[in-house]
């Protein structure tokens, strides 16, 4: 947040034209590559001070955070009108394909004619829209599924807290649990090979399916690679405990 404040200060102080230019801060609610949660109250405070608009991508927080699953704004108690544009992918909590974008009437109507991905692309297949509607209805009627998810995350984090040489580096709220080596083995390629070995042993011997982080050649992301586990409200306690035991066993064997 210090870096954000400095950047905003620098941009608005030297630029007299800054008043007339449309400016946006673009953040993700839960970062897919690191599992960290954005501090929304800080961002809103900065946005109001420097007069920027906020674009928030809630792909991994929609249906996960907040007492009724409405996302990051509910979790932090920030009135949703303060966020100008909220976008989300429906492939995560809602288990369909596609995405949506919400905002004020003016912003959304403007996009119906000017957004390239909306105007020049074919629309969503109707059965996916129906699936999304049913998912949202289910979430409204059964908010207890959020509590189940939170318990599962907590249980997994406790179970993984004593794995040999690996530590959990994502936020306690995040359903994407990242495991990284406490000390790197030298280079990124060696780390990645080690993670691959752990993941494939757990898969072949204990039937536990996890994935490692991937980067493409075009990526400019400098976050460390790790093993990713995705927690679901559909997992039972025995499933979570089995995953923890398997990881402990395989990590001890590989990293000994």
């Amino acid at each position: 947040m210090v870096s954000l404040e400095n950047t905003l200060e620098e941009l608005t102080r030297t630029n007299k034209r800054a008043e007339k230019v449309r400016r946006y801060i673009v953040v993700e609610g839960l970062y897919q590559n690191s599992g960290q949660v954005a501090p929304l109250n800080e961002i809103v405070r900065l946005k109001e001070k420097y007069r920027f608009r906020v674009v928030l991508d809630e792909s991994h927080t929609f249906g996960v955070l907040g007492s009724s699953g409405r996302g990051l704004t509910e979790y932090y108690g920030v009135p949703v009108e303060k966020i100008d544009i909220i976008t989300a992918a429906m492939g995560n909590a809602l288990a369909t394909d596609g995405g949506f974008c919400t905002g004020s009437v003016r912003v959304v109507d403007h996009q119906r004619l000017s957004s390239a991905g909306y105007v020049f692309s074919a629309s969503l297949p109707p059965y996916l829209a129906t699936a999304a509607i049913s998912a949202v209805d289910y979430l409204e009627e059964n908010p207890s599924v959020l509590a189940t998810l939170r318990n599962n995350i907590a249980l997994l984090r406790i179970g993984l807290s004593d794995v040999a040489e690996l530590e959990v580096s994502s936020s306690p709220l995040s359903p994407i649990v990242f495991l990284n080596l406490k000390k790197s083995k030298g280079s990124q390629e060696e780390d990645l090979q080690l993670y691959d070995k752990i993941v494939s042993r757990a898969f072949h011997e204990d039937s536990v399916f996890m994935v490692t982080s991937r980067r493409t050649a075009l990526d400019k992301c400098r976050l460390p690679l790790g093993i990713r586990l995705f927690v679901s409200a559909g997992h039972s306690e025995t499933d979570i405990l089995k995953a923890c035991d398997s990881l402990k066993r395989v990590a001890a064997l590989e990293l000994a």
Partner: protein
Amino acid sequence: MVRLPYLTALTTLFSYGLLFAFGQVRDFIRYILDLRKSKNLQCLVQGYAPICLGLEDFYTRRLYLRIQDCFNRPIASAPDSWIDVVERYSKDHNKTLHRTSKTSKCLNLGSYNYLGFAAADEFCTPRVIESLKEYSPSTCSARVDGGTTKLHAELEELVAQFVRKPAAIVFGMGYATNSAIIPSLIGKGGLIVSDSLNHNSIVNGSRGSGATVQVFQHNSAAHLEEVLREQIAEGQPRTHRPWKKIIVIVEGIYSMEGELCKLPDIIDVCKKYKAYTYLDEAHSIGAIGRSGRGVCELLGVDTADVDIMMGTFTKSFGSCGGYIAASKEIIQHLKNTCPAHFYATSMSPPSVQQVISAIKVVIGEDGSDRGARKLAQIRENSNFFRFELHRMGFEVLGDDDSPVMPIMLYNPAKIPAFSRECLRHNLAVVTVAFPATPLLLARARICLSASHTREDMIRALDVLSTVGDLVGIKYFPIEPQ
């Protein structure tokens, strides 16, 4: 080439000028009223730059909103040859539209349903429902994580075999296929030469890749040669080093013109100057060619000469998503570098099954000849319809065999007149204006389907003739001999 009569050009410009003047007057009155009001109002959004400045959304506010009821019409059934259109009403002169619960059954000339797979099909639909029960609507995962099912692998092989290329890769969204693949194929230091009427997804992808983009005149192999010669001689901007890579991007059928690409000439030019070719067959795959294999088959071009072939499943196969077919090395490279493969949710399994079943019907693997009959039907329908429209005096664009037929309207006032009159006669058409087409060349785009029967087409022609006389778009009447 589009013929634009002199008088029509003048009247169209006059129409736009009048609309512009009216819009400015209304804007001015709004400005005066706002000045008076803002003295009493406490502005909540003080200090924030406005979302749209000045004239940026002038077109939306003053022109588009007047005829808003002709666009974005909600439908209430599958987009088969007959479609249910939801009726809407407005209480404030089209600023907001409200849906009613009534629908009217209209003849559908606006959907890309070239082979008739949009409605329930006896081979495809039971298999799709089964895969929905087995795999659920989404894989909830990127392709590299847990999103590759048996169906995805089968589809990639089937697409490669259908298009006659060694390998293929599929994506969940057709637009994203172009805009995410082009940056993976070429970067800074490369040159992209693209047709002037290429689709927005290609333009977006080219811009996002960082390569230099040059445009050549639509379908002109001579101008392409000129551009290539000049660019190869000059080299990269400022350093004048040779280009790392040159890719020429063309489309199979251009959706706003209905024209086929002059592929043999363009391929000759590319081979002569050692440039790669990228063919976007969004509208032509499955719809043209003797066995539905697209523009290469129709024009007799060997698929080994086209380096990368792209297509979508939305038009002829009744599904969603896109594919790229190329050599094994290119596909392997894409699987290791394309962000859409790594981070985007993979294609929905029932959609994958729909494409697999549709391709099997087209090539005849379902055990019947429905595929061949559909292909013959769409060709016959397109040629019959185009000939009749031409005979009635409309200005129709497009080549023979192409199922896309734009009818020129030119004048902005004729767009809502044509659209609303057709809807009154229960004919659903799609009208296109600026900015999707040049300012003076507004048109109504007709898309035929293999499921249209002869009676449907004769009925459509009657309605179009009546409406055409009423609206005055029969610009080139054929003189009786």
